[in-house]
């Protein structure tokens, strides 16, 4: 676990959703879309809350990185207020980016986060893509406006928190065989629905979210059920993921 100090440059809150931008001179290349960082408040060796929090990299430019996360408890509340962070990463295996297009990007909840960097990477490669994001009913209007501005061209699907919200977003995307690749980052229901819809038709890459402890492959805490050589097993979201091929997941 290598930790780097980062200075928070900008903070914006939309209800419980927080956008944090920080600067870090940590060595290493730029993050791949779908990679994550493990973050704790900086400037202290206090160990309560004990664990760091894993967040997808939302965007990255030079030495600045931005994160989008939801305040759920004391740990995330402290991070939302921090002026300095201890950051490990970028970590994990992100999305495999490329292909002829068009690609489909589906996002739900706060896990729309990694799709920003993904969309920019696809654009840089000239890969045409469409973005559909679930617009949560619980979030304030400002969050919706921010989503629109931050994901240019994305279609926001107001789901009103319906139980079949994921299905609604998927239905708006239409026939998946029109796409050359599907990238999904959302709640588990959205991942499962998209995987089923894409199965046998188009390669799907799913960004999973799991509770993590070490975030570095040591503890096996972030187990994800996977198929490996026809046998059910567990992969670690932090090093073998967080992005998995749809057919690899044994959910």
């Amino acid at each position, binding site marked *: *676990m*290598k*930790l780097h100090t980062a200075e928070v440059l900008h903070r914006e809150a939309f209800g419980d959703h927080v956008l944090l931008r920080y600067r870090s001179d940590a060595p290493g290349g730029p993050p791949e879309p779908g990679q994550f960082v493990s973050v*704790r408040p900086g400037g202290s*060796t206090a*160990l*309560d*809350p*004990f*664990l*760091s929090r894993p967040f997808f990299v939302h965007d990255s430019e030079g030495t600045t990185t931005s994160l989008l996360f939801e305040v759920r408890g004391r*740990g995330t509340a402290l991070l939302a207020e921090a002026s300095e962070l201890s950051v490990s990463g970028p970590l994990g295996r992100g999305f495999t980016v490329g292909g002829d297009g068009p690609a489909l990007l589906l996002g739900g909840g706060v896990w729309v986060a990694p799709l920003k960097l993904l969309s920019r990477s696809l654009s840089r490669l000239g890969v045409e893509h469409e973005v559909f994001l679930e617009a949560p009913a619980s979030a304030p209007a400002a969050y919706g406006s921010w989503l629109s501005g931050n994901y240019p061209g994305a279609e926001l699907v107001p789901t009103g928190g319906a139980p079949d919200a994921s299905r609604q977003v998927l239905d708006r995307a239409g026939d998946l065989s029109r796409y050359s690749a599907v990238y999904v980052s959302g709640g588990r229901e959205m991942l499962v629905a998209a995987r089923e819809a894409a199965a046998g038709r188009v390669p799907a890459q799913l960004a999973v979210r*799991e*509770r*993590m*402890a*070490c*975030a*570095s*492959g*040591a*503890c*096996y*805490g*972030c*187990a*994800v*059920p996977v198929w490996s050589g026809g046998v*059910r*097993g*567990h992969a670690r979201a932090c*090093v073998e993921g967080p992005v998995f091929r749809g057919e690899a997941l044994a959910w």
Partner: protein
Amino acid sequence: MVADLRVELCGIPLRTPLIPAAGTLSRETLGEAADAYGAVLPKTVTPGPRRGNPPPRVAEVASGMVNSIGLQNPGLEGFLRELGGYEVGLPVFVSVAGDTVEEFSGLCARLASEPRVSAVELNLSCPNVEHGGLTFCAGPESVERVVAACRAALPGTPLFAKLASEGVRENSLAAEGTGADALTLVNTIPALTVDPHRREVFLKGGLSGPAIKPVALRSVYEVARLVEVPVIGCGGIASGTDVAEFMLAGAAAVQVGSSSFVREPGDILSELSGYLQGAGLSAAALTGSLRDRERVV
């Protein structure tokens, strides 16, 4: 001046007293932390591969975490194929666990012929598996059976017994009496977390982190006065002064576990070095050098 951090454990020279606790070392990032450690200790190995427990496997609690991984590992032969990945010029200690006495001794017999293994640690106290695990720590008789069988299977290699805090005095004496060369104290402590919104058990597992440090420290303190063999302290060690406290209480070396997820082991070692310089002591001289205090009862 740099403090002398060297210690010796069962005749094995360690360049620092820090050892990763079983299940907390990442092969993927070993290179980043190797400088801080005196030995490498990979995740517990069982005879065959284990898929481990279904998620969720971890939960954060006040100053610590609860885990229930269930000994996910590739099995002994798979582990031996990956062993090269743990060779970074440090002694390699291997943690093993079985469901039966025969499985434990079989693991030891196989490792006896493996020259890359400097010591074997018996995980007699994993709280997260249905069979074996903590049951081997249920009392001195079962500790004696496992340790004696493993000792016979592994005559020429140092053998450590990793024990639970519960019953630690009796079990330590039993392990020492049947041939353990060192005692690792203590494993995670059985714990539970509940999801009050769903009204369900969230996780039944083992508690680790700073929350258990005083419990572990007391186990080390009591057992170090009771046995002749070295004690390896483990449980909530998160700073250089934590290391010093365990060594003062009698530990010859320490294991750093879940705190290595949130602090760099190199920083813990630097803090220890600073402490030793201030005290004018070497790491080896620290062990058991706690001054008597009348009021301690």
